[in-house]
Every structure is written in C-alpha cells, then in structure tokens.
C-alpha cells in the first residue's frame, strides 16, 4: 500500500490545453515509475478514458472544446473510480462546489506550484487508501496519518502543526527542490499575505530539522541556494 502514500506506479491523465503547463506537470509527475499521459481537449480525454483505466485525472475546466465538468459527468455515469483534481483559473465558489459535487476530489486554482499539485495528489490518494493503511513510511520515518504522530526509529518526535504539515509536504515531494514561495503558500495559504517574508519558514525548517536530527543521523533536509529546500535520502 505504500504506493498510495508515496505515489509509485500510478497512472495519471493530465487534461490541460496550455502546452507549457501540461509538459511541466507531465515531467514533474513522471517519476517513481508513475505513468503520465496528457491531452489537450475534451474529445481526446474521453477517448483515452474510454480505452484505459487511470488512477488519477488532472482536469482543467476551461478546455477549447467544452467544460471539463463533462469529463466528471462521464466518469460518474460510467461508474469509474478515477480520482479527479480540478485545475482551474476560475476561483469561484460555485465552480468549486459544482466540481466537488459531481465527484472531483480536490480543486486547485491556477497559478499553483507543482509541489502543491503533487502534495494534493498524494493527499487524495491517502484519503482513498485511508481504510487500508494509515501509516506513511519514509525510510526510518513512520507517520501515523490518523493520529498525526511521527515516529523515527520507533521514537516519537513531537511536531507542531506547521512542522507536521511541512514534513508531509516534503515527503510528498521527496527528491524535489521546493521553492520557499511554494512552501509559504502551502503553510499559510494566500489568505495571510506573507509578502515574501521567509524568516518564518526558515525558523520552522530549522526546528523540524533539529527534531529529526535529534533521533537520527540522516540529514534529509537540505537547503538549496536560498531558493528553497529539498527533502532527500540521496
């Protein structure tokens, strides 16, 4: 069941008409033996969905030949169980509610960071797999998703809410450089305008790293030239 937590060997269909964005999503997600396919319009998406089973559909609402909601209707009518994350430029509550009502699992508003997208995908997978496995394992780190507790080498470390969220975010994007802005947006959201003040992130990172290093010798958290951080075991 680890593949749900760490996103391995999953098939993702990306439906997005903006080529630049589509390609980057494809590259970012095509790791850990994940299979990503993409298409730019509604018609192709339906053809692909009719032919293959996917685990995940990333769906843009504003497509050249119609609204992405149609795909949601299609999946619902066909009783398919692909998870769907809507990616939309429209940040309206109505669209959000409509999408979630028809069966989308999450709603992400453009512009977004790829790290955020991946974290959302992982979170949706975890939710879907919640009944079968509640533990997320990364080497010696074991996270109990229900109890929100973290064990390293069977020693529980106490994390604040922000540190815990940050750890999950890092593990979802392990091996990737995560920009500070992406991290700030994830932790504080856009409601609290941090105005690119990253001192807070720095202190949270420092605390998290210290807590991990207290119980293990592996320093997973690396700073990357002031741009961001990377959580990696390599």
């Amino acid at each position: 069941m680890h593949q749900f937590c760490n996103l391995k060997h999953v098939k993702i269909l990306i439906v997005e008409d903006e080529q630049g964005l589509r390609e980057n999503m494809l590259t970012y997600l095509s790791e850990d033996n994940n299979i990503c396919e993409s298409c730019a319009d509604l018609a192709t998406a339906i053809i692909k969905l009719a032919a293959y089973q996917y685990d995940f559909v990333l769906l843009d609402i504003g497509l050249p030949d119609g609204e992405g909601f149609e795909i949601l209707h299609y999946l619902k009518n066909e009783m398919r169980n692909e998870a769907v994350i809507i990616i939309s430029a429209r940040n309206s509550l109505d669209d959000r509610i409509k999408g979630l009502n028809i069966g989308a699992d999450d709603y992400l508003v453009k512009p977004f960071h790829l790290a955020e997208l991946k974290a959302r995908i992982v979170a949706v997978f975890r939710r879907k797999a919640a009944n079968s496995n509640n533990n997320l394992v990364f080497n010696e780190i074991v996270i109990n998703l229900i109890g929100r507790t973290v064990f390293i080498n069977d020693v529980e470390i106490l994390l604040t809410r922000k540190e815990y969220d940050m750890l999950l975010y890092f593990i979802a994007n392990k091996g990737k450089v995560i920009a500070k802005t992406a991290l700030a947006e994830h932790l504080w959201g856009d409601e609290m305008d941090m105005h690119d003040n990253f001192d807070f992130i720095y202190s949270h990172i420092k605390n998290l790293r210290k807590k991990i290093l207290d119980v293990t010798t592996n320093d997973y958290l690396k700073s990357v030239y002031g741009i961001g951080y990377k959580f990696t075991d390599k």
Partner: protein
Amino acid sequence: MKLAAHYNKVNIIVTLSVLVIGAVIYFFAINAITDNRLDEELGEEVSEVITYIQQHKQLPKQFDIDENQVEFIKTNLLNSKPRYFDTTYVNPRKSGDKSGRAFEGGISFKGDNYRFRIIISSESTVYLKQIITAITLILMLVVLTILSLANRYLLNDLWKPFFGLLAHMKAFNVSESSTFKLTNNKVDEFNDLDNAIGVMSSRVKSDFQNLKHFTENASHEMLTPLAVITSKLDTLIQDETLKKEHFDQIQDIYAAAGKLSRLNQSLLLLVKIENNLIADNDTLNLQQLINDKLRQFQELLTSKEIQIYAELGDKKVIVSKYLVDILLNNLLSNAIRHNQVKGNINIYLTEDRLVIQNSGSAVPLDGEAIFDRFQKGSTSDGAGLGLTIVKNICNVCGWNMQYLFINNLHTFSIVF
C-alpha cells in the same frame, strides 16, 4: 429656487399685470362710453333750452326738468367756449352733493350775453362703474385663486412623473442589476425623458458591466500564463547544474509572479464584491473572529515584537464570513506590515464600531486617497488594493469606514 416658486412667480406677475392693464383700459373705455352718452343727453337738453328761448322769447326759469339744473349767468364775455365736464351739484330734493355731468356754453339773448350751464345727474353711470370695478376685482381674485389651484395641480399631478423620475435617478446605482422601469405617462415629453433616461441608464450599466467583465476576463486570462511561469520555475529549480546567481534571479521571478497572482486575486475579488456575488450571510461573532485572527497572526506579531492591546466587546454581525475574514486580514496585516519593530496595535470592538490603531510612520496618511485603487505607501510592497477591498466590503455590509491620525496612531474605524 424651486420649480413651483419659479412657476408661481412668473404666473402671478404675468396674470396680475395683464389683469391690471386690462382693468385700466376697461375703466377708461367705460368712462368714455358713459361720458359720451351723458354728453349726448346734455346736447339734447341744450337744444331744448335753445328751442325754449326761441319759442318763448325769454330765458327759461330756474326749473328742473328731470332733475336737470339749468342756470344763466349774465356775462360780458362773448361766446365763451362750450365745454363738457364732470362736476358736483346740490340736488335740493336730496341731501348732499351729487356727482353730475355739466355743459357750459354761451348764448346771446336780447343783446346780452349769457353764460349758461346745464347739469345732469351721472349717478347711474357712477353706480355702473362701481359695479363694473367690483366685478373686475372679484374676477381678478377668482382668476388668481383658480390659477394657483391649477398650478398646484400642474406641479403636484402633472409633474408627478418628473419627480418620480428624479427619485429614480437619485437612487440609480450603476452596479445594480435591476433594470430601469418605464413609467407610463400621459405627457409625451415625460415619456420621452423616461425613454431617454432608460436608454442612457442601460447603456451606462452595460458599459460598466463590460468594464467589469473585461477586468474579470483579463484577470482570468492572466492566471494560466502565470501558472505556466510558476510551473516552469518549479521545473527549472530542479536543475542541479544551476548556480547561486541563477537561483537569485529565479527567486526574483518567483516573487514577481507571486505578486502578480496576488494582484489578480485582489482584482477578481473586487469585481466579485462589486457584483454582489458573495452573499453567503451568516451570524458572526466578531469578537471571536478577531481573537482567531490574532492567533493566526501571532507569528508575525512576535517576530516584530508588536504589543497588542485588545478591548473586545461582544458584537454579532450578519454578513459573509468570507468577506469579514478578508476585511480583518487586510486591516490586521496592514497594521502589522506598516508598523515598526516593538510597535503597538490597539483594537477596540464596541456595539457600534471596530477601531484598529497602529503605530508606524509619524506622517498621517491621506484619508481620502488611501481607499483608492493602487494607492500605496512608498515603502509598501503590496498591490495597493488592500484598503480598497476593505472599503468595498464595508460598503457591501452597509458599514462606514474612516481613517484618522490620532496621537501618532493610524486609526481605522468601521462604524456599523
């Protein structure tokens, strides 16, 4: 001056002058006619007297015929000029002076010159004139009364659609979606006015709608390119061959893209607020909301060592939680961002107002301009829409927003 006053002024001046001029002309005309008639009568008397003299070869005695008086005075003057004139005379049968019409002329009789005068009563014509004057005066009063009544009707009833229209235009709100209702008048001019205003208001509204749609569409269209920029950057930083300088550049692009996307969100939010698209009203406990917000901002407050003094009464409002959340966010983040290190923030919440004060720059802000779009302090790195959004939210909620500079504290108060 009001329309009614103007109307009455002109009306009364014109009516009165026409009536007065008419009355004067009338008076003189009647005078002339009656005098003429009396003079004719006098002429007959004169010819009777002359006939009498010729027949009887003697002057008539002082006698009265039909109350007429005739008198002869011996005079040396030859043929004094005959003339008619108004006079008064004493009627021996009646007491007091009576008004009369007299003829005076000269006559020669048996070698003597006489001046004779015949007076006939003009009582009846005076009476006639009095009656006519009285009738004219009464008529004037009646006309004036009728005119003022008619004016009142004209203004109150005939102009009613005009005042209705005026009230309508005063209440006109460009962002309201309600359409202009045409009132059906019996007056063509008002119908024209009605139609013209209807056309104008719908054009203004559609222009305004287009402008808003443009803002909305432009903002939306910008989001996808922004998403491309962000995803490209996210991909770019995975490149391990990049150097520190490159990352510095990328960091700046991230910051700019972030700012652009926040700006976009603010613009879209403004459009939504102005369109009244957010109407999920709830009963909210402001005291609790502010406390939650302060907890949320705790990190920022601690980092700047800002002292909070909060005096929060119990206040419930029925508005959109989403909007109040943004309102408090903007006000508090402003109060923190424009504060100095070790500064302070005072928050007062009472039944009728919410006041947020913060220390900071010693120069008061321009209380009018700060709520305008894209107005921001020189040191601010925000988009300059925060307070505009606050003001608009207040408008939607029916609150009043004020800025004052009191005791070196920037004071923002919302009057519920």
